[in-house]
């Protein structure tokens, strides 16, 4: 291995790693689409102390934040097929659970964990919006729903944006654990390519680069969007 880096392999594998980006992004986007609204709703149950849901959200958040994602993946990957096969057996559905595309498991795991993270993000963002804002909105005749939609949420979103950005970057990084479910994303693709000639150093340099590029772009995108959202802050300053 002391002959130095294999540059041809390094370059070829970079593109193999890059070809995993669509799957990574798909999982990320699906997880966000699921987690953003659900996380927000559950955050509202925390803020408004909705009896049972509030309690449920707390435990849910605590569990996700308290356990490594890899173990969440293990649990989902081990339990969902068990549950499904019982279910399929009972209703005589003729699907082999072991033929299910792993991306479905990825959707489940990452939606599940991202929702919990976003509950906390939205909860803290909502609590920074002055209560007077809601009261003022209601005093000019907006309904509770309208007040949230038009006054509270836009302000909370500005506060939440940096944390949503962090959550998204962490989510992208976490999808690298999809290998445990044989998900064909960046890491697994490059790793498989490396298996042939033991070019692991090169493969991991490629994976490393792809993630840095991907995450930097996402961070940059969020920064641009934040700037646009922040407009009203400049006016008031």
């Amino acid at each position, binding site marked *: *291995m*002391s002959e*130095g880096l294999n540059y041809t392999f390094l370059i070829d594998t970079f593109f193999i790693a890059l070809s995993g980006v669509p799957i990574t992004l798909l999982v990320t986007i699906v997880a966000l689409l699921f987690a953003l609204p659900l996380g927000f709703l559950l955050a509202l149950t925390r803020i408004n102390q909705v009896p049972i849901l509030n309690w449920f959200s707390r435990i849910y958040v*605590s*569990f996700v*934040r*308290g*356990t*490594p*994602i*890899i*173990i*969440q993946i*293990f*649990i989902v990957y*081990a*339990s969902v097929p*068990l549950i499904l096969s*019982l279910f399929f057996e009972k209703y005589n559905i003729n699907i082999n659970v072991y033929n299910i595309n792993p991306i479905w498991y990825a959707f489940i795991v990452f939606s599940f964990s991202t929702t919990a993270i976003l509950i906390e993000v939205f909860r803290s963002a909502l609590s920074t919006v002055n209560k007077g804002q809601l009261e003022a909105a209601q005093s000019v005749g907006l309904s509770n729903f309208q007040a949230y939609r038009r006054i509270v949420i836009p302000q909370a979103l500005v506060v939440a944006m940096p944390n949503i950005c962090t959550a998204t*970057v962490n989510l992208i*990084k*976490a999808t*690298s*654990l999809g*290998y445990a479910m044989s998900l064909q994303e960046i*890491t697994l693709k490059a790793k498989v390519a490396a298996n042939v000639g033991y070019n*692991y*150093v090169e493969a*991991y*340099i490629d*994976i*490393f680069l792809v*993630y*840095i590029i*991907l*995450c*930097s772009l996402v*961070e940059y995108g969020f920064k641009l969007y934040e700037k646009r959202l922040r407009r009203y802050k400049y006016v008031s300053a």
Partner: protein
Amino acid sequence: MEKYFDISYIWNSLPVLLPFLRVTFMVAGLSIIFGTFFGLILAVMKLGKSKVAQKIANFYTTVLRCTPSIVLLFLVYYGVPALADNFGLYLHDLNTAVFVVITFTLQFAAIMSEVIRSAYESIEKGQFEAAVSVGLSPLQAYRRIIFPQALVVGLPNFGNGLIALLQEGSLAYTIGLIDIVGKANLIIAANYNTHALEIFIALAVVYWVISILIEKFFGKLEKVFSKGKQTINTN
């Protein structure tokens, strides 16, 4: 036929798993010590006057923030010995734990540099000015006035960093470290891959409990250290 899910496996695996927390904690502890030290250096670079040092420290933090732990872990695991080869050092037989500690030191340093930087910046400049104006030396001002206040601000973030480190550390099994996760996988293999779910649940419970304990501990610690702050809430 055997049951798919047998809760007794959870209970029975715990006594086997728990001793391996020693490895988990040792690796995490070393990473925290080295990472905090390295993070302090990075924070000093970020807060210092040198533009070059700032750029380097910020670049380092951005890169580390964008790198999944597992990628960093393998990069270190394969990369460090390969790099050492160039200098005639043979590191391929190094204990796996060393690579794990290097990885998480690098990562924790990036986290800590941000924790330290933001804690420091949260303390108004006036505190330092007042301290030197009553005749304290700059070093005394940092030690007696700035540091105790920054500590309170940084403590919750430090706690969150610890929990994050502990969780990311669960990936160490992928390069063959027999910590609690590694042991869990050995148990499952010994059971011919049956009852994996129960073992994983046991693992999850262990991590969950530790995280809650850390959180509680830091909550308490914050109260103890927040001299002069405890009264704000009642105002």
